[in-house]
């Protein structure tokens, strides 16, 4: 059941990215280009998602276990540190460079877009580099 609900969540998430246009890099770059003719659509996607998410996390926060009895694993970190900011700067730079963030990259891969294959492989390589650097931390 845990696997089925995760599959459904991934599917609905991906459909949301396609319906909203966010699976398409040109649409995302239209939002990130403040100085050009600006497309505010991405802000509406965030607003719609947070409108639902807010209530879901209110409910989730009161529970010890999920509806399927799984352990609730909500992030506990509360400190805003250099890692968070530096990592977000790098991520934002990559996002602006091609218009892909992880979700849309995977959905575009599912469309069979060859350039998404390159992006996702490089992203996985980046994640592997992170794991290797983490192992070397004292």
């Amino acid at each position: 059941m845990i696997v089925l609900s995760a599959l459904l969540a991934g599917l609905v998430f991906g459909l949301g990215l396609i319906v909203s246009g966010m699976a398409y890099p040109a649409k995302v770059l239209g939002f990130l280009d403040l100085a050009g003719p600006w497309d505010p659509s991405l802000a509406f996607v965030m607003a719609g998602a947070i409108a639902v998410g807010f209530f879901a996390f209110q409910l989730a926060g009161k529970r010890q276990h999920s509806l399927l009895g799984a352990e609730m694993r909500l992030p506990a970190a509360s400190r805003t540190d250099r890692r968070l900011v530096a990592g977000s700067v790098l991520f934002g730079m990559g996002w602006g460079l091609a218009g892909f963030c992880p979700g849309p990259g995977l959905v575009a891969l599912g469309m069979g877009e060859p350039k998404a294959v390159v992006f996702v492989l490089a992203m996985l390589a980046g994640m592997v580099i992170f794991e290797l650097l983490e192992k070397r931390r004292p």
Partner: protein
Amino acid sequence: MTLDWNAFTPWPALAGGLLIGLAAAILVLFNGRIAGISGILGGLLRPVRGDIGWRIAFIAGLLGAPLAYRVFQALPSIQVDAGYGALVAAGLLVGVGTRYGSGCTSGHGVCGLSRLSPRSLVATITFMAAGFAVVFVLRHIFRC
């Protein structure tokens, strides 16, 4: 600042956003997990027994979404303007950055802001500012 009224699609954006929120709701209420795509994918590179199946299932759902969409209507065609070199650089930056920053547009931008997390607000403002800056430099200074 001028608005691009031809590109602006408020209703599909809002509808897609509601679906994304619903997906995050399903994952947290049924699985007790945050729908943060970089974290779900990155967790597979550090596999823990009993914590793998749901990650693969979620990613399979994302990959299968275009197929499911086609059942209802024609999929709009995708065009990626970035060249292969830029895509490799972008992928590396997104991979390393999201793992160091503990999240991406979904984990911080959607789930974190829904949880009113100050950490996620800082992350979201930071990656958006970096994205705005890079696009400004590329499009209006280097004109590419």
